[in-house]
């Protein structure tokens, strides 16, 4: 790259890369939105609220024009990497294409504007969307009933565990412990803790699956249930799942499935057939609702018939008169986990995705997701250690052990991938793989994109051999280089101040 001349002190190169905070762009007197004229008499705040309640100016609040707002956030957006930008092989996150039509239909007048307390008679369209979404998810999982109220996967977990507890309490005793394999996502134990249960971790076996003898020892009549991710966070299917379910059920426990990895199974297998009693899905993973830079998500819960009475209230129901209604008459419900009907707008998008695909498209999607993951595994297995060589479904997990010998870790390789134009894979998870490199290409990767990714990985491995510093200091092409996370946590600066 040609060296730039040093600019005069007041000029800044690359203005789009040096955007200030919105507060720093502010100047008195600017405004970015104007109101319609007031068509009623103005009210005096001091009179209506009492002078002691009235607030003065909010110090430091921004004052900018509409154009500056547009430029500000447009510039910020260009510092992000999205699924739209390119391959996003972030394992366990299922970063797949977010269809544009989903965004359009979620914004239709009526869909986007109906109030959640509108009487059911005036909300038939929205209620039908919720009902249909729940019905489709029930079919996909093979379960009997679905609640769309949980706002995210972690809230779905909490909902499911609370239902297990309510059911066991009805049977006489809620019990004390939930079993969770050591490969599980951190939200599992955190959700269990809120439900008033203790967590007991189970070790995985050499195949990366749950150890049956370990489960046999742990599964007592004090255990409320087992929480299992299928396929697990290594992308491996628990082939003993039926035996696992029998072991749990024989002692009176329930089987919870974390459905975060459902993108490996849709149309291929229904969790109900595994012996699962309750599970959650992530609409923002398998069902294409956008991740939005970290939410909103949606974590519907699906259950077998005997758990239906415990689902959160209300549930969308379909009356004999053909009308849809919100059913609040649910005496055994665990209660509410979120206000209103949950993240309705996410259900709209998920249903649009299911409708676009139909059964055949969904199955093809699953097949492509599994094909892509296995292709990456096949073409990288000579370069990286594969700690568990059981068959992979939608993702594969390598270890950095060979590169670590040169002082380069999974996080460094991930950062170097950025320079090649790819989003990194998931680093350092699951915890049972030291130096984990968790790759989930999803079905949304073309062969050309996958081949380019594979070549980038091969090239980085070569760099590790020849010039490890290049990798250790990556990324080199981004707006900022590596950021000091330790300093950020030691003396937190969490807001701008004038």
């Amino acid at each position, binding site marked *: 790259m040609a060296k730039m001349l040093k600019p005069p002190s007041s000029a800044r190169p690359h203005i789009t890369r040096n955007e200030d905070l919105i507060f720093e762009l502010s100047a008195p007197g600017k405004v970015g939105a104007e109101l319609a004229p007031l068509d009623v008499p103005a009210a005096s705040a001091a009179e209506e609220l009492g002078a002691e309640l009235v607030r003065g100016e909010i110090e430091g609040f921004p004052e900018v024009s509409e154009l500056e707002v547009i430029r500000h956030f447009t510039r910020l957006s260009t510092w992000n990497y999205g699924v739209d930008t390119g391959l996003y092989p972030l394992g366990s996150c299922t970063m797949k294409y977010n269809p544009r039509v989903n965004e359009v239909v979620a914004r239709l007048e009526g869909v986007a504007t109906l109030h959640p307390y509108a009487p059911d008679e005036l909300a038939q*369209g929205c209620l039908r969307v919720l009902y249909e979404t729940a019905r489709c998810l029930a079919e996909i999982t093979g379960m009997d009933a679905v609640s769309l109220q949980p706002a995210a996967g972690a809230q779905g977990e909490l909902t499911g565990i609370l239902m297990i507890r309510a059911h066991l309490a009805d049977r006489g005793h809620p019990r004390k412990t939930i079993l969770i394999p050591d490969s599980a996502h951190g939200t599992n134990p955190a959700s269990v803790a809120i439900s008033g249960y203790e967590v007991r971790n189970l070790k995985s076996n050499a195949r990366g699956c749950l150890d049956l003898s370990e489960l046999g020892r742990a599964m007592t009549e004090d255990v409320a249930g087992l929480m299992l991710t299928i396929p697990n966070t290594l992308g491996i299917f628990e082939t003993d799942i039926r035996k696992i379910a029998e072991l749990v059920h024989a002692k009176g426990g329930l089987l919870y499935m974390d459905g975060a990895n459902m993108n490996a199974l849709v149309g291929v297998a229904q969790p109900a057939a595994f012996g699962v009693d309750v599970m959650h899905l992530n609409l923002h993973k398998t069902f294409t609702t956008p991740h939005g830079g970290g939410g909103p998500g949606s974590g519907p819960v699906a259950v077998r018939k005997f758990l239906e009475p415990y689902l959160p209230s209300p549930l969308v129901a379909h009356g004999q008169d053909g009308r849809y209604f919100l059913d609040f008459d649910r005496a055994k419900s665990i209660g509410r986990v979120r206000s209103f009907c949950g993240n309705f707008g996410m259900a709209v998008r998920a249903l649009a995705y299911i409708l676009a695909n139909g059964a055949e498209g969904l199955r093809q999607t699953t097949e492509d997701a599994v094909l892509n993951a296995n292709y990456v595994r096949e073409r990288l297995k000579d370069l990286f250690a594969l700690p568990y060589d059981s068959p992979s479904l939608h993702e594969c997990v390598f270890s950095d052990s060979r590169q670590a010998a040169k002082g380069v870790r999974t996080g460094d390789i991930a950062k170097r991938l950025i320079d090649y134009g790819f989003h990194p894979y998931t680093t350092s998870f699951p915890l049972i793989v030291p130096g984990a490199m968790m790759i989930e290409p999803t079905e949304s990767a073309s062969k050309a994109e996958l081949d380019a990714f594979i070549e980038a990985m091969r090239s980085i491995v070569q760099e590790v051999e020849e010039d490890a510093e290049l990798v250790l200091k990556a990324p080199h092409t981004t707006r900022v280089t590596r950021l000091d996370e330790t300093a950020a946590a030691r003396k937190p600066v969490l807001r701008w101040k004038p």
Partner: protein
Amino acid sequence: MRYLPLCPAERAAMLETMGRRSIQELFEHIPEPLRLARPLNLPGPMSEPEIVEFFRRAARESSPDYVSFLGAGAYSHYRPVAVDSLLSRGEFFTAYTPYQAEIAQGTLQAMFEFQTLMAQLTGMDVANASLYDGSTAATEGILMALRILRGRRVLVASSVHPEYRQVLRTYLQHQGVDIQELPFNGAGQLELGKLESEVTRGPACLLAQSPNFFGVFEPMAEISACVHGARGLVVVAVAEPLSLALVRPPSGADIVCGEAQSFGVAVSYGGPFVGFLAAKEQYVRQMPGRIVGETRDTKGRRGFVLTLATREQHIRREKATSNICTNQSLCALAATIYLSLLGKRGLKALAQQNLAKAHYAARELAAVPGVSLAFSGRFFNEFTVRVPGRAEELLAALRKEEIIGGLPLKRFYTELSDHLLIAATETARRADMDRMVRIYRQVLSANSPSRRERGQAKPSSEAVAR
């Protein structure tokens, strides 16, 4: 399938690379009895125009032309077109949680701006990068206060949104916490006498809402003094954060949380929304949810990262401050864009319009014989009217004129069977408010309803046990 970028020849070539004959081989390790032998029974596939038509029909069946005076935690405000225009940038909405900070600076800086805006509005030192919604923000606020106090007692004003109280009970039911609900008085405010006698029993975490579910501001200075006098903590959920452009932040609050849907997020049948939580600096390490912090890169340039992760579940697992993983990043971004557009002066002017509209509607309705304002407390853009014996009839008459006239409070409070909660934001047109008042006059000047009609009112099934 139009979303899939692989063609049949590529699929075949990839299988060949792996030495596989068919895609089925990749699934053969799943035991055969567990595999689905039939196609799923689902609608579709549909082309794009069919999908649009499907949802247009749903939209038509969702009363798009009705005028609504519903609020109660979800407020109708005009959303400047720039909000959706910017949210629709794929770099924002198709990005993941910003763990890889170098290629997520857009999201991270915007979240830092969101945190600053929420801290400014609430008068608190720090705010997090958002929570699911107001109900979970209020719940997380109380859980946080319990951690700080190492407490086991929660006092909740029954003037807090009933669904927020329901969510709180769901989360606390197995925490060994004693929850006491406190009554409201004729002003629609927390009964201070009852609070005073409760706090004599020891420190407690109090949850109040201001403005509260009835639209009324709580006497926060007195409430806070009372709770702090007994070494308790005050958590305030703000029902309509737009009010903070006009009124002082809740006096004496230790944690201020609430629902920020009003700031550029569509009502969307109740979600997705965006909860916020702000607190005094000394409590930051007990905060739940994601937090963005400022730092420097290796060349000394300003940048932003997710920070204080040692509070979070992916590190702490069952000992985390919360099980929450996601925030509502895109909705928080909407709020950030919205507040930037409105700005210091615009937001205040908007709040003044809301104040004017609601007070106009309240004055006009209260002038109708048979209607009175239910509570004497001061309100912002939402208020409660009392129409003895006529609530159902009025709502039905309004509905005939395509007006959703407010929320009957008997749904949540058995003793408020004659009460309607009415919101009038800047989107409420004077002509529609006048039309509503005319219908009130017509209905109420007619004879009182027959016994039969009054008997038809369904019993409240969701009333909160108090």
